[in-house]
């Protein structure tokens, strides 16, 4: 990992939100009006923070390469049935930013662990994420033909294989995480097994009928209903559908890294905030960006009459809410080593300021 100067790191912490790129507007603004302006910085064009002190882009790029290698190696290549393994690889190695694995690795490091300890769990959460996308795209669910510009798994391999490939990825994630062969030799032989057991418990809970699946179920039940979804219900869906797996990623990283219970709970709060933030930003982007900018169909939520934050709160209030979530997330990082917390800080910023 790229080392960086502690002084620089402290600047990272002190100048979190308003990026230099906000430029003259921010410079003239002062006091309350400054504060006010910060709200609209979220998802407003060209105000994303430019990473200078900590090279976030390089950090994410390096992690994506390492995670992709781990994912590639985890699939039992060469073992039959080839078509099933092909379908799993097709879905799993289709690219993507690997945000969940990055969160897992970063939170292992922030509590004092070595990044390599968390590589297997990082791969596992990406497998679960992929599996949920494969099943989500099925004709009986969202019925999507395209994912990241490529035909979806069931379009290429057929529905039954897509169901099986999803199931197999889910099993692989748990098997990969549970197997001691997946970890480097320098883990603490006394404490590591108990940590892995606890981590697997977190993963299972966060994706099951009280986690990810619960969010999908409530979302399904809302779809087709003409009534507007109330705010608390919308939050329930997002906290489960999106935030739960981010929570698992972060919490498992912290457990494997040997974090204290207090540290783990702080990071859990951080994850829940950025998980909700992720969706709020998604909703804002859908109404403010063109399809071209997003790389997917824009205005889809409006067209399908889906309940979104802008619809319930209005655009400006949605941005304020996003801002609050970002602050909440950052607050949880305050007591950690600033240098080690930089990736988590930048991940939160990234989720808030992404343009697609």
């Amino acid at each position: 990992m790229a080392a960086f100067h502690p002084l620089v790191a402290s600047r990272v912490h002190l100048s979190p939100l308003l990026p230099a790129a906000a430029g003259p507007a921010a410079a003239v603004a002062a006091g309350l009006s400054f504060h006010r302006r910060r709200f609209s910085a979220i998802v407003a064009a060209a105000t994303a923070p430019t990473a200078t002190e900590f090279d976030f882009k390089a950090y994410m790029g390096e992690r994506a390469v390492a995670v992709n290698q781990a994912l590639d190696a985890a699939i039992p290549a060469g073992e039959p049935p080839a078509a099933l393994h092909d379908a799993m690889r097709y879905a799993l190695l289709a690219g993507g930013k690997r945000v969940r694995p990055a969160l897992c690795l970063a939170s292992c490091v922030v509590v004092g662990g070595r990044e390599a300890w968390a590589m297997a769990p990082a791969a596992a959460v990406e497998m679960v994420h992929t599996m949920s996308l494969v099943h989500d795209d099925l004709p009986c669910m969202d019925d999507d033909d395209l994912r990241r510009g490529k035909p979806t798994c069931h379009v290429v391999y057929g529905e039954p294989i897509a169901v099986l490939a999803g199931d197999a990825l889910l099993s692989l994630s748990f098997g990969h995480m549970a197997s001691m062969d997946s970890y480097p030799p320098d883990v603490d032989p006394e404490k590591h097994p108990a940590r892995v057991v606890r981590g697997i418990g977190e993963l299972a809970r966060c994706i099951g009928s009280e986690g990810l699946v619960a969010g999908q179920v409530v979302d399904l039940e809302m779809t087709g209903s003409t009534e507007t979804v109330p705010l608390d219900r919308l939050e329930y869906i997002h906290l489960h559908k999106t935030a739960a797996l981010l929570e698992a990623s972060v919490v498992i990283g912290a457990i494997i890294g040997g974090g204290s219970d207090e540290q783990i709970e702080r990071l859990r709060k951080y994850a829940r905030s950025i998980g909700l933030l992720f969706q709020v930003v998604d909703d804002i982007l859908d109404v403010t960006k063109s399809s071209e900018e997003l790389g997917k169909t824009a205005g889809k939520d409006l067209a399908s009459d889906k309940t979104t934050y802008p619809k319930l709160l209005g655009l400006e209030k949605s941005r304020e809410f996003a801002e609050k979530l970002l602050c909440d997330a950052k607050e949880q990082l305050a007591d950690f080593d600033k240098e080690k917390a930089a990736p988590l800080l930048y991940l939160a910023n990234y989720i808030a300021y992404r343009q697609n």
Partner: protein
Amino acid sequence: MALSSLFAPLPLPLPKLPYTSKSSRFVPIRTSAAAAAATASPSFDLRRYWTSLIAEVEGELDAAMPIRPPESIHSAMRHAVLPGAGKEGAAKRAPPVLCVAACELLGAPRAAALPTAAALEMLHAASLVHDDLPCFDAAPTRRGRPSTHAAYGTDMAVLAGDALFPLAYTHVISRTPSPNPVSHAVLLRVLAELARTVGSTGMAAGQFLDLAGATALGEREVMQVLTKKFGEMAECSAACGAMLAGAGPDEEASLRRYGRTIGVLYELVDDIRSASGNGKMRSNASVLRSLGMDRALGIVEELKAQAKAEADRFADKYGERVLPLYSFVDYAVERGFELQDAAAKP
């Protein structure tokens, strides 16, 4: 025919056995005292043992799946795993029984194996729910009542399966007495074993091969599908029971072979019975068509001999505790009793 096939080379019923130890796969039946006693022994009543275990496992399953919000998914999950009122849709629970029996054979308490036994049923049910989907077998019923997608919709059935997989791991972790007597390291081996068994080289591979029409090909393919779909689940059940009881490598390997053999045996006998019109209806008639009845009966004899030979390994050391293992073999072949009225219905 049945006899002569005992001396023919094994038809590879068990491709790629992980632990083929000193004695070849082909162990001649050893007529031990325990084996002789097995069929006649009044000291072990398999039916009673099995029935009481079904009740215990279902108690675990019931407690592990309370109806809580969102209600629809929890209700769909219960539908997939638990029998309804009046025991409609009751299941035999063979994997959990095998798991507990392996654990008790080695002298460990039943409580060590029960959570894993229940988890095996959750995983099993999850794969059945997906196997019944319209894009697969399109089965409208399962165990005599509407399949999960028929009762709750296809989308809910996909999600119910997706939720049952993680619930199985949650259950093992939260309910197994650990770290004492079951260490965390053993718990991880059990979790990895469960995941591998239902994964891309295990049951999912079996479903895939079945889907690809492998059962219409030849003996090799048929046995492979039976091994992947049914043998590996039984192997996993016995292996988990062994691990949870702290088995050594040799005992674990032997119980694995025993489990795998009995899983295939059980299923093959099912197919034979359904083809000859005396068991429950199953759609796997192609297995019999591929093998031919004579060859199928021959393989049954071979598998039976193999399973008993594995059980024999434990007879001297564990005495009467090995009786359940022998009894399962006989039951798998003869189906000497009905477990529950409902379970026997189509």
